[in-house]
């Protein structure tokens, strides 16, 4: 290794130290913790066991929570995608003034703290919240609609929070589609709809995948919004991990659940990348 290279390595030394001390070490400690036995009476024991993991993947209580979390992730990701795609296209195809204004509007909610935004949704969605009161007042419904403490409320909150990420990732992806390609499809007698599905959509796929992975991973690991809008009864993995650590003081159990969540996220990213590479062979990388 040349002297130049070694001096170059110094540049990445700070971030390496930070990652080892701040990420790898705690993860390793958590990993060991998740393999410790635990009992409500004596706390964390000092023998090794797989009990915590077996508990998580066999107990119907945890399985329901895992299933619910994944379902939530899929729904939030799909809704974000459906809402963000037309918005990204609109932003891309409007004039410079409208473009700047709409990008600012998209980013604007990010300036507001998640707790505040989630609380805002509570005010709107609660059984005696603004929406239900208004609908009852208008005589449209007799009893309050269940908008909170369930899938609906958490979904609404998370979609609103993660929509900007999806929009901001889709814009460059759509921008990368060569200008004349859609015109070429139209001239070759494809309808606008067919052009969208056979040309625009496949060419935007890399951005769609990146955006979807990001929103999915953020959704299944979100804590604040599910805690506030899901309440104590509608539990997802992140809130349950919090519960295990902070309320039950079952650190090994919480650690095991956290690792299961991490493994699910990593598996999904890996799988999505594989699919992505296969579907975008002509656009990026791949064999030549």
């Amino acid at each position, binding site marked *: 290794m040349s002297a130049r290279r070694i001096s170059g390595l110094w540049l990445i030394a700070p971030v390496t130290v930070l990652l080892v001390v701040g990420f790898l070490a705690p993860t390793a400690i958590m990993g060991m913790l998740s393999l410790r036995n635990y009992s409500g009476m004596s706390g964390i024991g000092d023998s090794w066991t797989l009990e915590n993991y077996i508990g998580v993947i066999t107990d119907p209580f945890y399985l329901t929570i895992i299933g619910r979390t994944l379902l939530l992730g899929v729904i939030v990701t799909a809704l974000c995608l459906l809402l963000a795609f037309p918005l990204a296209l609109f932003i891309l195809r409007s004039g410079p003034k409208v473009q700047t204004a709409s990008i600012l509007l998209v980013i604007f909610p990010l300036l507001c703290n998640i707790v505040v935004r989630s609380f805002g949704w509570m005010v709107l969605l609660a059984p005696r919240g603004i929406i239900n009161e208004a609908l009852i007042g208008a005589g449209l419904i007799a009893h309050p609609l269940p908008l909170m403490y369930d899938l609906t409320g958490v979904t609404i909150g998370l979609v609103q929070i993660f929509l900007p990420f999806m929009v901001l990732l889709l814009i460059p992806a759509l921008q990368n589609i060569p200008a004349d390609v859609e015109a070429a499809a*139209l001239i070759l*007698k494809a309808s606008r709809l067919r052009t969208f599905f056979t040309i625009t959509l496949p060419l935007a796929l890399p951005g769609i995948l990146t955006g979807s992975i990001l929103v999915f991973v953020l959704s299944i690991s979100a804590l604040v919004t599910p805690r506030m809008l899901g309440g104590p009864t509608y539990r997802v993995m992140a809130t349950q991990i919090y519960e295990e650590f902070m309320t039950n003081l079952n650190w090994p159990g919480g650690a095991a659940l956290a690792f299961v969540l991490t493994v699910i996220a990593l598996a999904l990213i890996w799988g999505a990348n594989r699919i992505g590479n296969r579907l975008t062979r002509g656009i990026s990388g791949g064999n030549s």
Partner: protein
Amino acid sequence: MSSLSLRSLVKRYDETEVVKSVSLEVAEGEFVSLLGPSGCGKTTILRMVAGLLAPTSGQILIGGEDVTRLPPNRRNLGLVFQSYALFPHLTVADNVAFGLRRLGVKGAELSGRVTEALARVRLGHLGDRYPRQLSGGQQQRVALARSIAPRPGILLFDEPLSNLDAQLREEMQIELKQLQAELGLTSIFVTHDQHEAMTLSDRICLMAGGVIQQIGTPEEVYLSPATGFVADFIGSPNKLSGTMRGARVDLGGGIALTSANDTLADGTPVRVTLRQEDVAIAPIADDAGAGAIEGTIRLRLFEGASVQFLVAVAEGVELLARVAQQDPRATLAPGDRVRLSVAPERVFVAPAGAAGA
């Protein structure tokens, strides 16, 4: 094959008229170039014919049918883009098949026609590749195959060769001309390159400032330019200014040339265009004919096929003359005294400051 008529076509953006009442008739199987400098409106016209832009007013007829309000996918056209515009996520064969599938061509006929189209552009062996694995010239040939495969009524070209390097461009010009002649395709070819337009076209439609300056065969446009702009744009011209004195043009410095153009009044200030290849150069001993001007060679530029001479004929008046490299006069050297002459019908004059400048 279809014919094409443009009737008083206008395109206006806010206050600017990019295309000003353009009318053009293109017969079946004819190859017409829209030639002009950038911003002359030629690409705008092409995009209106393709249906990618809506005209402000006027009509577009393809095969006698008014298509002015029809979307691009209902006009039965092919368009070859400057950027190629291949579908990057589809293989070469799938790119070519795209238009055929829209026509409902299936199975053996589909693969047969894809193979045929690719064979026509000599890319039969590359059907499985993706566009990014091909060179620029190959990509443009795929784009061509993709456009001709569905047998469109009219084939449009938007500066298709300008992204290619010079040699490849000349090869492609020949290929394109052969293909067009074989298939008898009605073609509209947009270019800013006069050589390309002259080589390929049956007729050239020369444009400037959104207005047609002249429509004619390459010979007509070259030999009898209708406006001062055309004379300046075509060939490699010497551009001078002068004043009419009867049938002669006074270029100043005691230099005058006879022009065949006798429509301009005595004393009119004019722009004079002399093509380099029309300026006959001869050693001083020779008799270069009537209207000869004497001068001294300042520079000799060897260009390969030809040699260019910069000749000072009077104080502040210099002319460029060009002779073939095989010509005995090509050996003239800087400092030699020479006689220059231009045939009267090759002296193009136009009133100074006339429209179309």
